[in-house]
């Protein structure tokens, strides 16, 4: 561009009608919309199937392989198995009720989360409401420190203790453990993360316990 008479990209002065600007943006928007809708339609089934598979796997794990499970929604402080009219499933919290091969209830799988050392720790756990005991626990989401706090999901000994532990859970240091079924040995160096998990489960049961009672009363054993 050594030729001084041609200025590259001379800014047009008021000679572009605003209609043309609108048309350009609308055109670009339309093309963008078309492309996105096309890819959305193509990928969405795969994404939904994957999410459903992950959820099913987590429920299977914490309820110790139920034969089947139902989704129950929390609506106005009660558990309902049918979605109320005009309410979408995305707006409601849900718990999952698992059954064994004979059709009797194993327990509920509940997802919950509370602030840990770094950020919210999200988990799902299985809970047998008849015996008041935890069936299993799986951390779904955590940003705890690698090597310390992340043992809450990677340390098999820690995770294993939740199976069969009674509510309310009580966190203890390993050397003070007395064998009480309420006790959970906390991880050395990750006390806050361990406590967060225990607190999350206790708080969730405190909140859902009455709903489970009401649901069992309403539907028989």
């Amino acid at each position, binding site marked *: 561009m050594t030729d001084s008479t041609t200025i590259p990209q001379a800014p047009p002065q008021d000679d572009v009608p605003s209609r043309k600007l609108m048309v350009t943006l609308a055109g670009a928007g339309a093309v963008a919309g078309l492309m*996105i809708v096309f890819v959305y339609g193509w990928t969405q089934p795969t994404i939904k199937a994957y999410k459903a598979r992950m959820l099913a796997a987590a429920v299977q794990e914490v309820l110790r392989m139920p034969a089947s499970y139902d989704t129950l929604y929390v609506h106005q402080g009660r558990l309902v198995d049918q979605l109320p009219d005009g309410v979408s499933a995305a707006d409601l919290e849900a718990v999952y009720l698992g059954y064994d091969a004979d059709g009797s209830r194993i327990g509920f799988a509940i997802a919950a989360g509370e*602030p840990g050392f*770094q*950020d919210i720790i999200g988990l799902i756990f299985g809970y047998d409401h008849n015996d008041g005991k935890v069936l299993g626990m799986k951390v779904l989401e955590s940003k705890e*420190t690698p090597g310390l706090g992340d043992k809450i999901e990677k340390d098999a000994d820690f995770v294993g203790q939740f199976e069969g532990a009674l509510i309310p859970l009580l966190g203890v240091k390993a050397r003070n453990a007395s064998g009480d079924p309420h006790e959970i040995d906390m991880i050395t160096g990750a006390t*806050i993360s361990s*406590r967060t998990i225990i607190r999350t489960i206790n708080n969730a049961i405190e909140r859902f316990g009455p709903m489970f009672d009401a649901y069992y009363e309403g539907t028989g054993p």
Partner: protein
Amino acid sequence: MGDLIWILLSAMVVNNFTLALFLGLCPFMGVSARVETALRMGAANVFVLTVTSLSAWFLNTFVLPYAPYLRLISFIVVIASLVQIVEIVIKKVSPALFRQLGIFLPLITTNCAILGLAIFQTNRGYGLLEGLFFAVGAGLGLTLALVLMASIRENTELSSVPELAKGMALVLIIAGSLSLAFMGFAGLLSSS
């Protein structure tokens, strides 16, 4: 209320936007040479983040349930236009305030912190009030990081730094140390 305070403090220090999530790095690297400028930039950030949080909440509640795939596009278009409108209004209503914040507003709109706030707020399912506390916390966190950085940089100007490290390398290593210091805030908010 406890939850709201947690959201505010978490966004401000524990998960500081700049030092832990790397959002808003452009102003952090570029504008943080003077404390005075850093403060104004921070104030403008708090303001834009709050507007963003409001518009993201509005879009999430009333528009996006019908077209989830338009999330990113609508966030960026709506936020950019809204900030521009607000800028015009401020210019008209309070020229003094405009002089304080004015030049920073358009700069901030294309900053990752803004879109980041909208996306995080959506991913975590925050409501209106939670979103506002999150935005103010994030804005204060950005301001804090900017001011700290600026005061350290004002001091390094007078000290003798090895020729090799001058410029961005030094800024990044200072940022790394600040980020390390901010890790000390982790665990602050766990209530037990």
